[in-house]
């Protein structure tokens, strides 16, 4: 079973080539593909036909809930659960609650942003078939630009997909197979 092909990987010369390749892979109808680069490339979402990340809506909802929640919590602690007159101020001094409500809103929104991002991009995931490729592991975070098409794409057929990537100008094309050494 160790010879099962998990993905096909092709390297491209520069960001422009990767962008063109992404369009062609999308037009061919592939779904489970990705374009890897050491930095985000402007226009890549359009080229790949990717939708905008939904993260903003999630964080927006959390922000609204946390600001209202913290305001209510301060009101409840100082006027209902532990009423104590301090400096002659009214128990429900709502003017004073702004700062902590705001701070808690920012805090929870930021935490949800980071956790939400990790959930959406599927990290942490310490092992991925693409890391079997030595060329990919060495270059993707340095100066390599890659297209990967994964084996669970409905259109995937190792040899045909490999030919297709060759035809759109990919170099160093690899069929990614598990590496015995690991």
């Amino acid at each position, binding site marked *: 079973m160790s010879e099962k092909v998990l993905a096909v990987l092709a390297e491209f010369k*520069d*960001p*422009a080539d*990767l*962008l*063109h390749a*992404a*369009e062609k892979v999308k037009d061919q109808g592939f779904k489970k593909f*990705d374009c*890897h*680069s*050491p*930095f*985000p*490339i*402007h*226009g*890549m*979402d*359009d*080229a790949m036909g*990717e939708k905008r*990340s939904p*993260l*903003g809506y999630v*964080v927006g909802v959390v922000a609204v809930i946390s600001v209202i929640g913290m305001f209510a*919590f301060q009101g409840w602690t*100082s006027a209902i*659960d*532990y009423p*104590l007159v*301090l400096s002659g101020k009214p128990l429900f001094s709502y003017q*004073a*609650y702004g*700062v902590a409500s705001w*701070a*808690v809103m*920012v*805090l929870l*929104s*930021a935490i949800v*942003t*980071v956790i*939400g*991002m990790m959930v959406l*991009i*599927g*990290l*942490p*995931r*310490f*092992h*991925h078939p693409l*890391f079997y490729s030595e060329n990919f*592991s*060495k270059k*993707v*975070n*340095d*100066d390599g630009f890659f297209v990967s098409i994964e084996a669970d794409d409905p259109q995937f057929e190792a040899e045909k997909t490999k030919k297709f990537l060759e035809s759109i100008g990919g170099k160093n094309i690899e069929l990614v197979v598990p590496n015995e050494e690991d």
Partner: protein
Amino acid sequence: MNKETEAVYDYQVPLITGNQTFSSITDRISSITESKTTKEWLLLFGLASSLMLLLFGSIGYLVWEGTGIWGLNNPVGWGWAIVNFVFWVGIGHAGTLISAVLFLFRQKWRTSINRFAEAMTLFAVICALVFPGIHVGRIWVVYYFFPIPNQMDMWPNFRSPLLWDFFAVGTYFTVSLLFWYTGLIPDLATLRDRAKTKIRKVLFGIFSLGWRGGNKQWKHYELAYLLLAGLSTPLVLSVHSVVSTDFATSVIPGWHTTIFPPYFVAGAIFSGFAMVMTLALIARRVYHLEHIITMTHLENMNKIIMVTGMMVGYSYSMEFFIAWYSGNPYEAYAFINRAFGEYAWAYWIMISCNVIIPQIFWSRRLRRSIPVMFIASITVNIGMWFERFVIIVTSLSRDFLPSSWDYYSPTFWDVSLLIGSFGLFFTLFLLFIRHLPMVAMSEVKGVLPQANPHHGHNGHEGESK
């Protein structure tokens, strides 16, 4: 800006010099963390960590003996501990401004300096948090600050600005940490891929979370980064505003003014940029980063230092004007006393360092001279420390009753805690520049001309519209 002018701008003033390629950036930055430890680093680290031990020792004695070891006296109940707190929180603001505000304004020059400015923020806020922590006296009940259910069925007093401060600074630290870590993920993956030793492979492997650089990751990553920048941007304004309410909501003459929040924020950015400048100049020199942190970056920072310095100068004069214009004799006295009373020496150090010295940056030649900006950045930080000293001590030492007036002077322990906090700051900073990429590699690569998909492809325009 249309595409053509943008292109002209890009090529006329290159942000990164020396014909860098993507992999030369990777090599330049990563090799710093991979090469052998130098003698200079060890020497500096030894010095900084000794001072850090001085801090820990002083804190130990303080907890044992109590805040009586400080120079505090009856009217001056807030001394150096609070001065140091405000000073360190202020330093942090430049990091957030660079990483968040300049990001939203699409200032591409930020990419060379944002990583270590953010690190500086974190370490400065750690130093800041030490001081209110030890200032409470009975540090073992410091958890009273947290709104957690407890056996006494008590809740913290949300009407107090000191509690607002706890929330504001606590949030500031956590959000800065998250922002910094998020920015680090792709660069940690770069270090992971280059790692030779088992320990580096495992550690960078864990902390880079398995990053693969796919666009399906980048798209969420970029939005998350934008959201964090959006959330941090108001923090630049809010944190020091809340710190200033510790003073402004009291009734002490010289503190009870509405100008405090914007005045504190301008001062914070001013001092923070000066600290970034000091550190950047040292790191640039020691690690030969002249092509990455270029004269353009330094000149831009000097311009910001000059602008914020003038805002601070405006605030000083406006405080005086309002003290006179309000017709309030206590307020007027507080200000005349600041400039001409027992603490006049501190006041005039503050004015010289913060208002007069930054004016040299009107000259382009001085703005681009490394020794000049190095000295100016240090004097600005001295001046900003004195600003907080002047605000806190002169106002407190002359309160409403002349019979309680007193002169405040620091003790050995006040001094050792301040010096020690610099030790903590530099220890953390040295560890950071030794072990983590101090420049955001993925972001710097993104602003190189060849990163633009239209670069060198003018023949076939009109793609991806």
